[in-house]
Structures are given as structure tokens and as C-alpha cells.
């Protein structure tokens, strides 16, 4: 018996190595196929460009984001200020880039959070079934029943009423977005789990007497990783859009921390809206370009990683 378990242990040690070798070539194949999709590649390039622009761009700007310059108020775009200045004389281009840092970070972080919560709860629900499944999925059902926009608005109003410092609001907005984002994801992952757990290789893990944690994290989750990557990518775009809506209505991240959404807020001022389009059109275009690039890239990923969902 001890010899046998020793054998099994050594087999178990070898198996991940083997799996890794196969996996890496499969990944390489997928990347190769992705590279052939010109649309997806250009989407990826644009996303990288936007990230570089927002995170490195401000370092090259001669202006700082929150420095007021009363001599240069509300100036139209010129050679000195490529996108003009706002009502406090701040350079709009610099602010758009700084705003991008926040918007991209919020979008990315809330995606990570909701994918983490959603896949974990979905996996647990689908794997254990029974009472755990019932509890998790009923909560998910409940959250899916209540419309997410009013839910987010209430949360935003609470933040304002409690006077949460503007620096912290960014993090709370991330949590809010992942809170409304996880139920849909959990439902999807649970569905996948229900079908995967009946496969032969899962029966093999039972025969091998593997622990639940190992079955979940080494055998089931790796099999839904491709699906998760696709959903996660598309989810970033959705999160960026959601954050911009909230911030536009003053219920997400608020001034003076700039985000693309709350910069468009200046369109609520009639004169700014009609006479100074340089204040609100550039951030809107940034949202649009970033999200469309992410969506195109995500769709390319789907073609490669999720063969069942071929278009």
C-alpha cells in the first residue's frame, strides 16, 4: 500500500510537468492563431497604446493635472495646449491621460475582483451542489433580479452622504462594480462545472482519491481558464463603461480625481457643452476607443480559446 501511494505520489509529481509541456504548446498554438487575426491584433495594439499613453504620457507633459493656472482659463486647443484648457486653466490633454489611469485601473481591478468572486463561488456551487449551491445561486438570482443601475446609484449616493474621501472612492467603486458583476459570472461558471464534473477524468481523480481542493484548482479550474480569459477581457470593457456612467452622474469617482466619465460631466454645463467641446469630447472618445479595442481583442480571443463558440 505504501509502495503504491509512493508510486502515485511520484506520478502526481510528474503529471503537472507533462501537463505543462502540453499546455505551453497549446498556448503557443493559440497565440499563433490569434496573431493571424489582424483585427484582434490591432485591437490589442490599441489597448497597449492607450495604457502607455495614460501611464507614461503624463510624465512627458509640461503641465500637472491639478495645477490651476488662472491666466489660461478655457482656452481652445492650440500648439501649447493640444486639447485646450478647462475652467481652472488645467491642461485637458494631461488630465485626459491622468483620467485614463484611473478609468483603466478601475476597469481592470473590478474585472479581477468580479472574476475572482464569480468563478470561485460558481465553481464551489457547481462542484459541491446541494445546500451550498442553493445558497450561492439564490443570492445570485436575487442580485440579478434587482436592476444594477439603480443599485449602483444608491451605493454612489451612500458614498456621497458618508463623505467618503475622494481618494478612497475609486476603490469602493471597484468593489461596487464587482458586486453587481459576479452573479452572472458565477452562473456561467457553475453551468460549466456541472458538466465538467461528470467527465471521465474527474472520475479518475475520485479513483485516485484526490482532495477536493486539488480537484477544484488543479483539474476543474484549468479547464475553464480559456473561457474565463475571454469573459474577463470582455468584462473590462463593460466595467470601464459602467464606471464612466457612474462618474458622469457624479456617483462614482468624483472631482478633483479625474476619470473619463467625470470629465464628460462638464457637458452638463450649458456653455461648456455648446462652446467648449474640447472639454468633454476627448474623454468620451478615449472611452469609446479603449472599449472597442478591448471588445475586438476579446472577440478574437474567443475565436481562438473557445472553439465551441465559433462564429
Amino acid at each position, binding site marked *: 500500500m505504501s509502495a503504491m501511494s509512493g508510486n502515485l505520489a511520484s506520478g502526481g509529481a510528474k503529471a503537472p510537468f507533462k501537463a505543462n509541456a502540453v499546455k505551453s504548446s497549446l498556448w503557443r498554438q493559440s497565440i499563433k492563431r490569434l496573431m493571424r487575426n489582424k*483585427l484582434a491584433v490591432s485591437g490589442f495594439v490599441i489597448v497597449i497604446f492607450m495604457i502607455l499613453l495614460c501611464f507614461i504620457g503624463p510624465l512627458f507633459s509640461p503641465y500637472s493635472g491639478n495645477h490651476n493656472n488662472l491666466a489660461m482659463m478655457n482656452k481652445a486647443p492650440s500648439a501649447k495646449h493640444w486639447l485646450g484648457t478647462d475652467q481652472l486653466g488645467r491642461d485637458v490633454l494631461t488630465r485626459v491621460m491622468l483620467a485614463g489611469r484611473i478609468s483603466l485601473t478601475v476597469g481592470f481591478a473590478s474585472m479581477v475582483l468580479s472574476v475572482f468572486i464569480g468563478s470561485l463561488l460558481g465553481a464551489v456551487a457547481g462542484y459541491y451542489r446541494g445546500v451550498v449551491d442553493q445558497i450561492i445561486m*439564490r443570492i445570485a*438570482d*436575487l442580485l*440579478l*433580479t*434587482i*436592476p444594477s*443601475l*439603480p*443599485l449602483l*446609484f*444608491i451605493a454612489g*449616493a*451612500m458614498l456621497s*452622504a*458618508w463623505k467618503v474621501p475622494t481618494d478612497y472612492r475609486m476603490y469602493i467603486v471597484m468593489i461596487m462594480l464587482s458586486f453587481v458583476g459576479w452573479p452572472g459570472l458565477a452562473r456561467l461558471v457553475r453551468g460549466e462545472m456541472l458538466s465538467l464534473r461528470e467527465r471521465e477524468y474527474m472520475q479518475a481523480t475520485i479513483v485516485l482519491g484526490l482532495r477536493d481542493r486539488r480537484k477544484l484548482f488543479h483539474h476543474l479550474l484549468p479547464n475553464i481558464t480559456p473561457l474565463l480569459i475571454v469573459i474577463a477581457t470582455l468584462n473590462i*470593457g463593460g466595467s470601464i*463603461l459602467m464606471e*464612466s*456612467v457612474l462618474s*458622469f*452622474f457624479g456617483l462614482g469617482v468624483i472631482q478633483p480625481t479625474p476619470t473619463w*466619465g467625470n470629465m*464628460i460631466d462638464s*457637458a452638463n454645463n450649458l456653455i461648456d*457643452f*455648446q462652446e467648449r*467641446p474640447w472639454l*468633454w*469630447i476627448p474623454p*468620451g472618445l478615449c*472611452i*469609446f476607443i479603449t*472599449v*472597442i479595442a*478591448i*471588445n*475586438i481583442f476579446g*472577440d478574437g480571443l474567443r475565436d481562438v480559446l473557445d472553439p465551441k463558440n465559433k*462564429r
Partner: protein
Amino acid sequence: MSTYLVKRLTYMIIILFAASLLIFCLYAFTPGDFISGNMKLSPERKEELRQIYGLNKPVLERYAIWMKNAFHGDFGYSLAQQKPILQLFNEYIWNSFLLAIVSTFFTWLISVIIGVIAAYKQYSWFDSLIMVVIFAAMSIPSFFIGLLLIKGFAVDLKWLPPGGMTTTGSNATGFAYMKEVIQHMTLPVVVMTLLSLGSLTRYFRSNMIDVIKQDYIRTARAKGLKERKVLFTHALRNALLPAITLVGFELPALFGGSLIIEKIFNWPGIGQLYMSSFSSRDYPLLMGFTMFIAILTVIGTLLSDLLYKLADPRVKL
């Protein structure tokens, strides 16, 4: 089937109960209310008003009162508008419905046509172009495209009015009134159609691609039918059938209004009513609206499951 329905309805009621409790607590625990936000009132008067509206009672007791009244068909009383919630909903909902039904009609019409052509010419330049346009439509922030169109067509070109449902101070009736409303609803309808076009076109396109590969399509072609007839009578019918399940999911959108679009275009619909009540903290109305959407969502889901069964008898419920 009937046991399924009973089970389903029971579950629906439980979920709605839980949702109502959650919604009530959320609004009850949000700091500030309609009365404390009013600067003109003295502290004594505020206390008195709280007494009258029952706002000084414990949250659970208030919830019980709210639910009891709801079962008697009384969903509360708007503090800001001084009207019963149901009456207000009835006043505003049809404006929302008008926008929603017209844009839904155009969305379905356009996406069916584009979807069929794109599927027929899969991987052609037209198909690629359509895919890019679809992604563009799915990626626009709704409020931004709304603002952009107002700026372009209403402010700069002055072709269309910037917002509202009728011109301020207008007393037009009959045909002139209709013309006015149509002018005012053009921009919001364009935005709403654009925003929902993407996913639906994709849906029809992929359905159509699956159907075109079927044997009966080859048979129809082999019979020597005209290509148009093959596409639109044989293929499209089967591609459309699964889409009836989407009707259920449209339900909240049809009657629930659109918070963002109605706010941007100042359209007097239920979404705009919600947004304006939000700033004045008119909780009875906000709770009523959120509950209303929750009910629509639940009914819509049930409806689409039943329609799915209707469309495909093989589906076991």
C-alpha cells in the same frame, strides 16, 4: 407542465419578497431623506412630518407597512410630487414605452436584415465591416453618444430639438402634435437603436450561419428555388424562431424606461422620473420603481422560458 409552473411561480414570489426586503433596506439605510434635505423647514416641522409619514418608526415596521399596503394595491405616495406612485407611473410609463417600442422595432428590423446579409456573405468585406460597426455600437458610452448627437444635430445644425417631448409652451394638437413628438423622439430613438443593435445583429448572424449549413437549405437550393426565397422563407424562419425567447428579456426595457437616455434627452419618461426623484431623495418613488423593474425582470425571465418551450417542443421544462 403545471407542476413546473407552480414551482416556478412560488420561487418567483420568494425571490421578489427577498428583493423587496433588500430594496427597502438599501433605501432605508441611505443617509438623508426628502424631509431633511429641505432647508425651508424648521426642526419641529421636520419632526412632525416624519411622524406623519411614519419615518420615525423602526425599519422593519416600516417595511411591514409598505408590504401590507402594496398588497392592497397601494405602492406609496410620492413626497416630491404629492401623488400616488401608481398614478405617477401611469402618467410617465407610456412616454417611456413609446420610445422603447419604436426603437425596439427598428432594432429588430435592421438587425434581421443586416444579420441575414452578413451571414450569407460570411467572411466577405461586408461581413468584416459589419463586425467592426457592431463592435463600435456595443462600445459607445450611451450618455456620450447622446451628448454628441445633441451637440451635432440640435446645437450646431439645428435640425432637431435637443430634448423634451414637445416644444416648450407649445399647444399643438392632432397632426401637428404628432409631428412635434416625432421630431423630439428621433435622436433618443436613434441612440437606443444604435446601442442595442450590436448584440442582436450578432445573434441573428450566428443563428443564420448555423441554419444555412443545414441539409434542408441544400435541398431547397437543389430544388432550384430562387436564392432569395431560400434565404428569407426557408432559412430566416428557422433562424428567427429562437429569437422569440428574447421577447421576454425585452420586457424590463420596454416598460422600465432608460435611466440614462431619458435623462440626457430630458424625455418625460419613467427613467427620467427616477433620476429626478433620486436627487430629491423621494424614497417611496425610488423603491416603487426599483421593485417594478425587479417584477418585470422576473416575469420576463419566466415568459422567455415558456416561449422557449413553445418554440422548441423538445425542450423539457
